[in-house]
């Protein structure tokens, strides 16, 4: 164990070697655990802000007619809900997990570039303030949808420029985070931790980080061209000057489609850690999981135009993107089958992390199937920009990414805080969220099939009942997340609850369970000696 423990542990509070305390500890943070904690708290705060915007949308849609917001503000709500959830909540949450878990899982002392790590976190604060603050700028927040399609963006007020600047900063932060993750994984693994012995969470993040580096500059290009169209007289996308609004969509979705895998691949990694632990059986098909993840990442670059069937592309284009998109179902299916084969003939128990993981499998797969249905160009043309699409991407992003994040918090939270969460509360959070999620989003499939377009502040009377049901569900779902923070997260952060053992889960495997709970400030300061499977520290 000596290699595991904090070298300074025996003279605790050694101020000479010590770290800054108080606010300096956080502002000047270079410790991966502190930075990971900040990322997680930041993303939860953004989840709450984005959630409040979503409840604004749902409140307005509770009944036909405009009761609370005017249509312009409604468009601002949908736009900012999307931007904040994607760039503020889901992406940073996974970076938080990466910061906490990757060094612990590969037996590294810290992230490779500790100061850059600090910068990539703190850059997000001004960006988030600018995004959230854009509501108070003249003309209000951007209202062109989170996809920021030209030429509608050219009609927006100054807040559009603020949003573009914020996205530039967030993109820079993501790229720095990705470089850090790649370098850490490729260079700082403990001896014996070969790539093909690495936990899948590290694998999925390694691939995700490459995706981020490949596509964030593409987004930066698209929004920079939007900026110069707005202010410097260029006409990249402005049809009045001979520009091409469809080109914007091509560039945006060349970023946007890999982006959806950026938000789901690390979730696959989390679930791949949890299911074997609670099935008490090794992960089925480890190698094929790695290859499937890589295949999904590669395919994600050649399917972007399935978001654009209704722009009127040539028939060969539609056919190519249709078939390419359907192929993604193959590696994704392999993953689902592998997880179920892992559960098969195991010895399962259903603590909260496992419940979230099984919930993820079940509900995310529904989103996967609606994705397969949408990939068929003729059906998509009927359903494009309707609530069916809204239902689809919330099934994969909420029931996919967010559920996996919750699973991970319950799974690794005891390691982070040294406190076990309350199992009953975890179950209430899970079942409440699962039920309210489906009440919110399942009726949207029907609304979409019936042709209700998305981003509508008001709608024909025939859609009223399902909208009312969805609104009730949304408020319930929102309340469950407040419950989660107050009754699960806060007690763990305050140290209230049963002390967590070093390895709270009987069959969990990996180096993170070789260090005490809570994980000391410094771990693996000298590279540990590992067993043959690279799951345990020996000597």
């Amino acid at each position, binding site marked *: 164990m000596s290699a595991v423990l904090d070298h300074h542990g025996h003279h605790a509070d050694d101020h000479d070697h010590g770290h800054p305390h108080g606010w300096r500890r956080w502002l000047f943070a270079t410790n991966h655990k502190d930075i990971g904690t900040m990322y997680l708290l930041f993303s939860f705060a953004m989840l709450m802000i984005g959630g409040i915007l979503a409840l604004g949308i749902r409140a307005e849609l509770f*009944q*036909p*007619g*405009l*009761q609370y917001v*005017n249509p312009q503000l409604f*468009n601002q709500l949908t736009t900012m809900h999307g931007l904040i959830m994607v760039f503020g909540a889901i992406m940073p949450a996974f970076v938080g997990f990466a910061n906490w878990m990757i060094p612990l899982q590969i037996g590294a002392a810290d992230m490779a570039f500790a100061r850059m790590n600090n910068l990539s976190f703190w850059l997000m604060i001004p960006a988030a303030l600018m995004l959230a603050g854009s509501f108070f700028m003249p*003309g209000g927040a951007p*209202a062109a*949808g989170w996809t920021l*399609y030209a030429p509608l963006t050219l*009609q927006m007020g100054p807040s559009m420029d603020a949003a573009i600047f914020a996205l530039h900063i967030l993109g820079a932060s993501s790229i720095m985070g990705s470089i850090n993750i790649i370098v850490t994984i490729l260079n700082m693994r403990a001896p014996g931790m070969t790539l093909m012995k690495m936990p899948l969470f590290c694998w999925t993040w390694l691939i995700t980080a490459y995706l981020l580096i490949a596509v964030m500059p593409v987004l930066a290009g698209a929004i920079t061209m939007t900026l110069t169209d707005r202010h410097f007289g260029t006409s990249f996308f402005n*049809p*009045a000057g*001979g*520009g091409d609004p469809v080109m914007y969509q091509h560039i945006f979705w060349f970023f946007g489609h890999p982006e959806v895998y950026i938000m789901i691949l690390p979730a696959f990694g989390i679930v791949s850690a949890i299911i074997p632990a609670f099935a008490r*059986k*090794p992960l*089925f*098909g480890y*190698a*094929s999981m790695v290859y499937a993840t890589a295949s999904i990442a590669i395919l994600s670059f050649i399917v972007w135009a399935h978001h654009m069937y*209704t*722009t*009127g592309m040539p*028939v060969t284009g*539609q*056919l190519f993107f249709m078939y390419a998109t*359907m192929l993604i179902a193959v590696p994704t*299916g392999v993953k689902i089958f592998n997880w*179920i084969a*892992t*559960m*098969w003939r195991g010895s*399962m128990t259903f603590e909260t992390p496992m419940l979230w993981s099984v919930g993820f499998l079940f509900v995310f*797969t529904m989103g996967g199937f609606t994705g*397969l*249905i949408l990939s*068929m160009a*003729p*059906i998509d*043309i*009927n359903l494009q*920009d309707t609530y069916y699409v809204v239902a689809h991407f919330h099934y994969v992003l909420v029931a996919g990414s967010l559920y996996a994040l919750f699973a991970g918090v319950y799974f690794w939270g005891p390691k982070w805080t040294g406190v076990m969460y309350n199992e009953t509360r975890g179950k209430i959070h899970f079942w409440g969220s699962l039920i309210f999620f489906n009440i919110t989003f399942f009726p949207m499939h029907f609304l979409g099939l*019936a*042709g*209700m*377009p998305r*981003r*509508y*502040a*008001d*709608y*024909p*009377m*025939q859609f*009223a*009942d399902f909208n*009312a*049901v969805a609104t009730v569900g949304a408020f319930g779902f929102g309340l469950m997340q407040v419950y989660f923070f107050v009754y699960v997260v806060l007690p763990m952060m305050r140290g209230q609850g049963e002390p967590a053992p070093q390895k709270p889960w009987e069959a969990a495997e990996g180096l993170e369970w070789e260090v005490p709970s809570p994980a000391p400030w410094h771990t693996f300061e000298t590279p540990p000696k590992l067993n043959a499977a690279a799951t345990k520290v020996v000597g």
Partner: protein
Amino acid sequence: MNKTQSRPAKPVWQTMKNAALAFGLAAQAGLAAAAVKDLPGGPAVNQLDMHPPATAIAANIHWLHYAVMGICVVIFVGVFGVMFYSILKHRKSVGHKPANFHESVGVEIAWTVIPFIIVIAMGAMATRTVVAMKDTSNADLTIKATGYQWKWGYDYLKGEGEGISFVSTLDNTHRVMSDSGKPEAIDNYLLKVDNPLVVPVDRKIRIITTANDVIHAWMVPAFGVKQDAIPGFVRDTWFRAEKTGDFYGQCAELCGKEHAYMPIHVKVLSAPDYAKWVDAQKKALAAKADDPSKVWNLPDLVARGAKVYAANCVACHQAGGKAVGPIKALDGSAIVQDADKSKQIAILLNGAANGAMPAWKQLSDTEIAAVITYTKNQWSNQTGQIVQPADIVAARK
């Protein structure tokens, strides 16, 4: 497509619908919507499925959707049947001991190859429809649909009715009801327009889409048609309606503030009825055609301008002409009151503020002259100035 495929099984549909309705009602304790009836050609109350198809393409899409939906449900039930069986039987609480297998190349290959074959088969089912949807050749009637913020303009370009041209706008009483927050429970709420698009039944109609300002999308679910209308570009789609009646759709691409208020209403008429309609339109057009060289007096032109304002301007500028958010005030505006009328004429012809104020050059010379004269003599702008149609003719050159 044969008829059994394109029609949902009635009893199941009805039971599900009733169940959903009961659920909805329980959730909202008898909202006014309960009084709303299905809108034929538009949405039905608590509709669970796509619209009943009115074209062969829509019937194809309908059938394709059932087919892939069926495949997905079978796979879903199969896969998760296995998972739930495992969850019930392979749990620690019933004393199941864990096996230790974690690899099987044969199984991995099987569940890669079989899904591959299934998705390729699904793609093959859709391919013919994709090709058919893109075939806009040999149309009987070609109509250009132009998206404006926030209305649709229709120009009959080729075929019976060539030369007919009109703008289709949401009935303003619906817009007012929406703002009131308590719309009446009417069947075509937000779908009623002043001038529906009229087409003949059983003819191939080619719709050419474009837009004046931002991207819009022209959609009619019952026809299986949705095509973006993109400024600076022309795109096309087509349909051949197999039954007469009214069909409804809405703009499907976010186009700004009034995105939810630019519906599409297509009236499909029998061939003789359509011929009659074309005839009436042509006569009305001839009668309405204004002579741009006519010299008007002030009260007549202001009265005409009030109508043009109500039809085209009131959505943004409001009846009072006051500033609203980014919308500039007309009441008290220096440009409106300016004795140099050329500035205001230029804005109407070319638009302003990067298209936030669209160009209105599609209006007639008399209409533009009338609406400018109206704004110059309305509210506090009692300038007494008059702009004649001839001024617009000159400015257009």
